[in-house]
């Protein structure tokens, strides 16, 4: 499969005296992959997500998404790039409280200037896929955490981004809501071929990915790949790896 994202020796240093938050990180992501990023707090996961998503700029190194070097993007062009290529899901959902769920999911499509009828039909079909069709006219504070996060995921996926960044999406959810969300993401990955890059602390959530990059002190220290599409087996190998890393600390 073609390479969608390429990171080459990406370094991020916030203050001169401090050690780098990202230290010459290089990796590739192919189209349609579901990547998990794991690591302890302060290992550089969030910094990586920020520089990959044009929110922050690396001190050194290059990143290409869809063949575009992110270094060339500034202000308005970065915004346009995010509009056309990237989707986001956050731990805190970040739905707009004043908008209904229907309106929340519609926002990225209005930004692409799609006609209202098309927007409505796209929102409805995705809401059905994510099991929130009956909640469309409600406001975020009328929904459960799981429903909100699914709405947030629907909002990220509805515009069919080249790549979806998920920052600990299950962090605030109970186990059944988390499972529902992960299945929804997996479905989006398999059926809509959405490329996903998910940061998580949770080995169970990570086991839904096809490949996992484990970070420590701003570097990738281990890469795990799922074999034979067996999530349970993959979960166990992730757990084993994490506990091995824990004992090495």
């Amino acid at each position: 499969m073609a390479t969608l994202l390429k990171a080459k020796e990406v370094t991020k240093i916030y203050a001169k005296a401090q050690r780098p938050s990202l230290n010459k990180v290089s990796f590739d992501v192919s189209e349609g992959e579901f990547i998990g990023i794991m690591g302890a707090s302060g290992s550089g996961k969030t910094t990586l997500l920020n520089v990959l998503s044009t929110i922050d700029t690396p001190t050194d190194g290059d990143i290409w998404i869809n063949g575009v070097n992110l270094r060339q993007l500034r202000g308005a062009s970065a915004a346009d790039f995010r509009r056309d290529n990237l989707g986001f899901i956050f731990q805190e959902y970040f739905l707009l409280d004043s908008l209904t769920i229907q309106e929340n999911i519609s926002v990225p499509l209005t930004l692409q200037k799609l006609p209202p009828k098309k927007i409505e039909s796209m929102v409805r079909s995705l809401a059905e896929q994510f099991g929130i069709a009956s909640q469309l006219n409600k406001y975020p504070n009328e929904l459960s955490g799981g429903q909100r996060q699914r709405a947030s995921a629907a909002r990220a996926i509805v515009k069919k981004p080249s790549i979806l960044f998920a920052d600990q999406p299950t962090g605030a959810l109970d186990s059944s809501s988390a499972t529902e969300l992960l299945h929804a993401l997996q479905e989006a990955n398999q059926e809509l071929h959405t490329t996903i890059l998910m940061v998580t602390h949770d080995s169970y959530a990570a086991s839904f990915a096809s490949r996992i990059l484990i970070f420590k002190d701003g570097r990738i220290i281990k890469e795990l790949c799922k074999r034979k599409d067996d999530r349970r087996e993959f979960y166990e190998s992730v757990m084993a790896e994490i506990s091995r890393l824990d004992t090495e600390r």
Partner: protein
Amino acid sequence: MMNNFSIAVKNLKNNFSFYSLYLVSVAFVITIYFTFTSFSMNRVMLEKMSSDGRIESMCRVISVCLMIFVVFYMSYSNRFFLRRRTKELGIYALLGYRKSTMLSLLTFENILVCSGALAAGLVFGAILHKAIVYGITVLLNLTVDNSQIPFFNLKAIADTIRFILLVVFVMVLSNARFLLKSSLMDLVRFEKSAEKKLKFRKIPALSGFLFIIGGYGLALDIFRGTHSIWMTFGFYPTGLLTFLLIAFGTVFFINSFLPFAVQVSKQNKKSFYTDTKIITMPNFVYRIRSNARTLIMLTLLSAATLSISSVMALSMYYPIAAVSRMAPSELEFRIEKESQVDNIKGLVSEYASADQVTFTQTDIFKVTAEADHLPMEYSVGTSKGDADNENILRTAGFECISYSQYIALLQAQNKEAVVKQLPVLNNDECILVKYQPNADGSDETGTVYQLDINGNITSLTVCETTLNNPISFANSIGTLIVSDSVYGQMKESLTPENRVLSINGKILEKNEDLYEAMKQALGDSPYFQGNSHRVHEIFSLNSSTFLLIGFLVVLFFIATGSILYFNNVSAITDSRADYEILDKMGYSEKKIKKIIRKQTRTFFFIPFCFGLLDSLFATIVYKTGLMQNLLGNRLSLYVPTLIAIALTALIYLIYYQLTVHSCCKTVLHR
């Protein structure tokens, strides 16, 4: 161990940008208050400006209004800042602070802010007071011994400090009440508490709309003159009804109609599904839920401010504009003794050479007339009760001058434009000078008057009526301009009723010395009129009123502007996460700024537009119902109202730009 005082200082230091506007606005309010207090305690000026104690009593009334207003404004902003800090207070509570400790922390902060504002307010207030005193002395030509007016009036300082202490005390009480009422849970979760769901109710929405339309309709009804509801039911009851309709209408309109209208307009999918409207429209409905009360208060406040300023501008300007009718010539007097003419010409020549001045003598002939309907001017002032000066009653009749004299006077008065518009007058025609337009809108044009010129009946048809009287009302009322040949007939058979000398010339304007000298020479004649003198007199009489109400208006503006600022900045700061998310979704900085501008604009627009409409209707009612109509419905009369509105718009615009700037800085600052 940090004590309360040092925590308070640290808090203020760390949140300086947030507090700076609060500090500035409180300093502003104190400046105005101190300026006013210094002014009202300035015996030297008050005695110069009025001798009857009118200004003193007005000062007392306004100072009460000011005090109420300052207390209201400062407790509003205090409450506002308290709400913004509930989470912080929650943390103190979790750390084990007692409520009394928190209260003393808040009190320390308040004392610090108020002391800073007080120091600034006293200095700026003293400067402003001096500037106002200087302005008035120049404007009214007063001679004031400046050394008698201290820069700092100690009594005024003591008074201001006492008052600010009282305000701080009120704020402490209100903070204590807030702290006592809220539980720890309230404090910790206060900011996160979910908004109430807004119900879209049709009946209040519709009644809001209907009330407002009804109120404005009732205001416009005053144009129907004698048939209007205002005349049938009385001015004050109808005024009260209009006021109530508009006030309640505004409440329902903002509370129910606006959110309802926005909700309905969301049905128009084509316009709703755009990248900015999908954010701004729901956001407006959402914000109305928690801000309706503030918005209503601001709307009513700006309606009051604008109405007061435009009515005041009108009532200040109207008498000055009306001077052109009360005293059309620069100087004018009735010749009661032949010697007066040479005397006065001699006096004038001391101030101006002959080629700079025109003397126009007019002989006025009084004739009686018959007609189906004689105009009100024919008999006005002939009986006690309708005459301005009941000692000098006039006899009924038309006071006739010739067409060529009329033109000569208009030219001397520099009214070339009026001369150009004049019709050619045939021998059987006349022009009637009106005192004021008829209340029912009728006009005498076409009416035939049978003039009795010493037994000869001459029929004249009114070919035009005019408000451009060439001679003051003191010397001629019911003036009829007749052709030169009819005037010749009168001259042959009648003796003039009055002879009037009009003196014009730019050089004579604003010459109070000449006026006084002439007044003396004419023995205080009630028939002596001076244009510039009259304007000066009106300025002296009204400037204090204007100034005092000006204090109130400025204060209202500061309050409205600052409340709008605080409200918007806080709403946008609270939803900072929303803008971050928009940024990540691909909204450019430009688009986010556009959204912020739109959201802020709505909140500025509503109070301003309502204020504007309310003040326009209030001005119309005031002008039509309560003011004399000497000048007819000239558009130029509304110029001061327009200036007042333009100034208000400018102040709103400045506050709006300031607010948008702060909001953008808060949201886009990474």
